[in-house]
């Protein structure tokens, strides 16, 4: 296996060749980053059947724009920026209001889930409860504004640090923290409203 500096040098050479319009070199970059792009697109848009088409569009956009890449940030972060911008365009076209859902949990099962989450040492959630909370938060995410979905998806689902998110979104770390705070607050308010309205 190649050492990290050797890998970086190799990647640099591929990028330069791709900037000269060599498709084969770009293909090598695609091979290296395709899983990462698939994962990020999936975490943000949450539509497994659309991920491949979107990832293909992301790579096509990246190839057309690769001459603008100036080597100042890591190539992976630059590519993630292209992917996230593409997801944001997609989410803006989607009308959030068309997402409707019903509360499927009974009062009793909700109490049980809450008790389990309060005391994770007691064994945590069983698979059915996990599916229920996954469905619940998935629906809350579907209703959230595009910007919220992106920061929450990158932080809570992709597990990226604030620093990494700031690099991808080309923002200050303090701005990312504020956006995360607002997105979480909005999500909790949405959940509260949902519970009160049921």
């Amino acid at each position, binding site marked *: 296996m190649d050492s990290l500096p050797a890998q970086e040098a190799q990647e640099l050479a591929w990028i330069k060749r791709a900037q000269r319009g060599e498709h084969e070199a770009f*293909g090598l970059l695609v091979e290296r980053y395709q899983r990462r792009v698939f994962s990020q697109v999936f*975490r943000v848009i949450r539509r497994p059947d659309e991920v491949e088409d979107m990832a*293909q569009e992301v790579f096509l956009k990246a190839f057309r724009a690769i001459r603008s890449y100036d080597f100042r940030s890591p190539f992976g972060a630059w590519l993630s920026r292209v992917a996230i911008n593409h997801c944001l365009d997609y989410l803006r076209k989607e009308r959030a209001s068309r997402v409707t859902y019903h509360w499927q949990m009974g009062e009793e099962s909700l109490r049980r889930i809450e008790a389990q989450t309060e005391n994770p040492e007691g064994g945590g959630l069983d698979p059915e409860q996990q599916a229920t909370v996954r469905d619940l938060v998935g629906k809350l995410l579907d209703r959230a504004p595009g910007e919220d979905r992106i920061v929450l998806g990158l932080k809570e689902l992709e597990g990226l640090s604030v620093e990494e998110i700031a690099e991808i979104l080309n923002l200050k770390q303090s701005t990312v923290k504020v956006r995360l705070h607002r997105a979480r607050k909005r999500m909790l308010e949405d*959940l509260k409203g949902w519970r009160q309205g049921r």
Partner: protein
Amino acid sequence: MRCEEVRKIIAEDWPEEAPAAVREHLAGCPVCDSLARDHRLVRAGFHALAAEPAPEPSWGFSTRLLRRLQESPEREGAEFLERVGRRVVYATFLLALTLLLALALPSSGPLRGPTTAELYLAQSEVVIAGNDPVFTGEFPENNGATPVAPGNGGAGEKP
């Protein structure tokens, strides 16, 4: 601890486990406790969502992508021509519509100004009035442009 501080910790720090001081507050404050329960529920949901595997690229993904890249200059050229063609059609349609509207408008009324023929006729009346031997010199201030009505110092009102 005050409610404000507790809510800030819950929403801002998003802790995996609430600190002891927060737990103490939650035991005596049902409103903050309800927020904390929602927070735990959402956290659990995020954990479950994060455990979901992302779809893998299908076999031959990069090959298909490269094929599309090779086709794309031709496709872009075709798309450009299509865009230009569409604009020409729109422009022609707009021009035809303007011409139709111009022809369909009424030939008189408030929407239409005087025609060339009407202007020509009006001009000849003025010329006739100016050259009339009866009225010559009768309209010193008017210079023959408009006949002056009787009673306003016009013809037939000699002292």
